[in-house]
């Protein structure tokens, strides 16, 4: 099963414009770090507020949290690039992915409960704590009416969503699939991931915790910016050895080898499992770690890597790009991007 990538959108600490961010990553530019509000001076990458001014101005998002703002902004850009009409949007499935959801409102809501008692929570905050709130805002803003699903899990969940999106394109009433991933920043999640060892605030060579979003429109037909040549649903693991074995099992399906690997490594102890797998399967193939430029925004990072790979292919710099993800908690997966090889007439305007 293959799918064409026909629309891209991202919101990153380096900006939102596709080409500007792409060039910044190529040039190795890094965002300026800033402390997480209310934290013990934890340095992270933030999305500049003016990057998403259009989303912030939407009445529907008046009371929503940053995760929804980022998701909607990225989705608007992806849908615009794909040029989907109202009729086509009616035949579009949305799959949104999140790793920890609306953590800002969740912490604020529960903080009120802890400090002032169980009857003191705010009815304005609670609805936005629900995992699928961003998906609802995306669907409502861009005008979708079909299936809208939210997947939660570690950073590999985004590749599961892409796999699901490719499958969804086989449904008789689905022509397009919009995949969106988003991550917001709060001191409590920064603290949690630091304690867990998923981000490494101490090591200078490690990626910073980050926020942002990404969105991709998939189509079954036509010529896209790139093609999903292999999309794996992922394999679950219990130990770090199993991560490497799982990735190797997936890599076995990839031939000929890729000419670039966009790695999910971020400078933590989790990296070794993924590095071992691609070094064994594809020795000599260069690997890059975009999290060093864009930070680690969990499931959103995985989709940003797919966008980066799509741009590499679209600009003719690479032809086959492997995007592996060793999720931090339970699943490993991989995706292969190739040049677009349309089978039928173009559906892209």
């Amino acid at each position, binding site marked *: 099963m293959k799918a064409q990538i026909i629309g891209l959108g991202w919101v990153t600490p380096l900006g939102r414009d596709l080409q500007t961010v792409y060039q910044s990553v190529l040039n190795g530019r890094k965002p300026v770090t800033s402390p997480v509000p209310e934290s013990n001076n934890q340095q992270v990458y933030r999305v500049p507020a003016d990057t998403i001014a259009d989303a912030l101005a939407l009445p529907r998002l008046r009371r929503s949290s940053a995760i929804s703002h980022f998701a909607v902004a990225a989705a608007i850009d992806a849908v615009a690039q794909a040029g989907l009409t109202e009729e086509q949007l009616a035949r579009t499935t949305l799959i949104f992915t999140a790793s920890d959801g609306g953590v800002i409102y969740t912490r604020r809501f529960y903080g009120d409960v*802890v400090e002032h008692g169980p*009857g003191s*929570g705010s*009815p304005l905050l609670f609805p936005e704590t629900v995992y*699928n709130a961003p998906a609802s805002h995306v669907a409502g803003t861009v005008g979708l009416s079909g299936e809208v699903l939210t997947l939660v*899990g570690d950073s590999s969940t985004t590749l*599961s969503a892409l796999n699901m999106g490719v499958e969804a394109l086989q449904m008789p009433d689905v022509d397009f699939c919009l995949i969106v991933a988003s991550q917001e920043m709060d001191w409590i999640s920064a603290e949690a991931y630091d304690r867990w060892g998923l981000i490494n605030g101490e090591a200078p060579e490690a990626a910073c915790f980050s926020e942002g979003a990404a969105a991709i429109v998939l189509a079954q037909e036509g010529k896209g910016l790139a093609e999903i040549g292999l999309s794996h649903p992922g394999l*679950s693991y219990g130990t770090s050895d199993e991560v490497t074995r799982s990735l190797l099992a997936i890599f076995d399906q990839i031939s000929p080898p890729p000419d670039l690997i966009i790695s999910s490594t971020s400078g933590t102890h989790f990296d070794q499992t993924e590095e071992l797998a691609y070094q064994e399967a594809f020795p000599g193939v260069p690997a890059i770690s975009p999290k060093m430029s864009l930070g680690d925004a969990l499931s959103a990072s995985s989709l940003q890597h797919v966008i980066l790979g799509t741009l590499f292919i679209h600009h003719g710099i690479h032809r086959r790009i492997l995007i592996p993800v060793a999720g931090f908690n339970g699943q490993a997966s991989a995706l292969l991007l190739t040049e677009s090889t349309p089978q039928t007439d173009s559906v892209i305007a």
Partner: protein
Amino acid sequence: MSAALPSVIIAGYGCVSPLGIGREETVQSLRTSRDSISPVRLFAVEGCQCRSAGQVDESLTERASAIARKTRRWTRSAQMVACALDEALRTRPGFRPDCIVIGTTSGGMSRGEDFMRAMIRKEGEVSTARRIRDYVPHQPILQAMRLFGFNAPVRVISNACASGSNALGVARQLIRHGHARRVLAGGYDSLAELVFAGFDCLRAATPEKCRPFDEKRSGLCLGEGAAMFCLEAEEHDIGIRLAGYGSAFDAHHLTQPHPSGRGPRIAMERALADAGFEASRIDYVNAHGTGTPLNDSSEGRAILDVCPQAPVSSTKSMMGHSLGAAGAIEAAICTMALEEGFLPANINFRQGEADLPLDIIANEIRPTIPRTVISNSFGFGGSNASIILSTP
């Protein structure tokens, strides 16, 4: 084209809810229309308008521990998943899924609460990495699948209260379209202080009895539980089938359904179309039926539009609303109804609304032999999902 697609059969299932741990206890509770709502024992509820909920029996930890001792350290969600999965696998020995699709809204929220409470109160040193890890919503199913030796891909759907039905529906699509032959599907959620406080602050939870579709209904009671299904492709027309799935998005409001019931109606119509059934074939509607004024009037209108002849009940009246688990638990209850030959009751019902002339199965089970049932699940964010179960 549809003739070439395989049927999706329920080869085994397991269920944990306030009505019982396991099928046998649940059937007994359903037969007696037992009200399992009780005062909340898991956390403080002072200051809340609502102080009761459906809670899984206190023997849960012991029952899970009998499967594996290490489950004693797991969250309640994970213990419920272990019990439901154990039962499902005992009814379908040797089942190994190609894929796992699960619905939940809050997963291991209780551990997240522990961490947040400690951090907010500046008691951070007590919180270990394990507590944080157990908070993530997919942790309960990951723990349970490792216990039973599965390494299949996992998809955790969090579509608010529609999650369980969405999970079953997505599993059906995977099998129908040849992406998998065997899928483990279901849902789980345990009662959590944060979520309880949330529904209370929205004034969606009632301080009184939960009375779905009653003219004086005043809100929902929360619940908890888990249900797991072993779904398989089957070329022959045998067993109970997961026969149809439909979903629809309603952009009207984040927490309120459109009053016309358009989202639920479209979901039900799509499920019927997917099954290839006429609406007249529906023998029973297991309603979402939360007991809130807005949900029940919206859903009631949709049912009257789609299958006005069908008897209706909300089993949430007996066990509360288990959110991401609800669709899966109610699918298990529908399966029991098909197997046992009765329609579950809608308890605490006194009188319906004059403009919603539904055939409510009031307060007692209705002995009959249903062949086709539809189960509705609707959630925050405009998520609407319906599934259809049928016998050959």
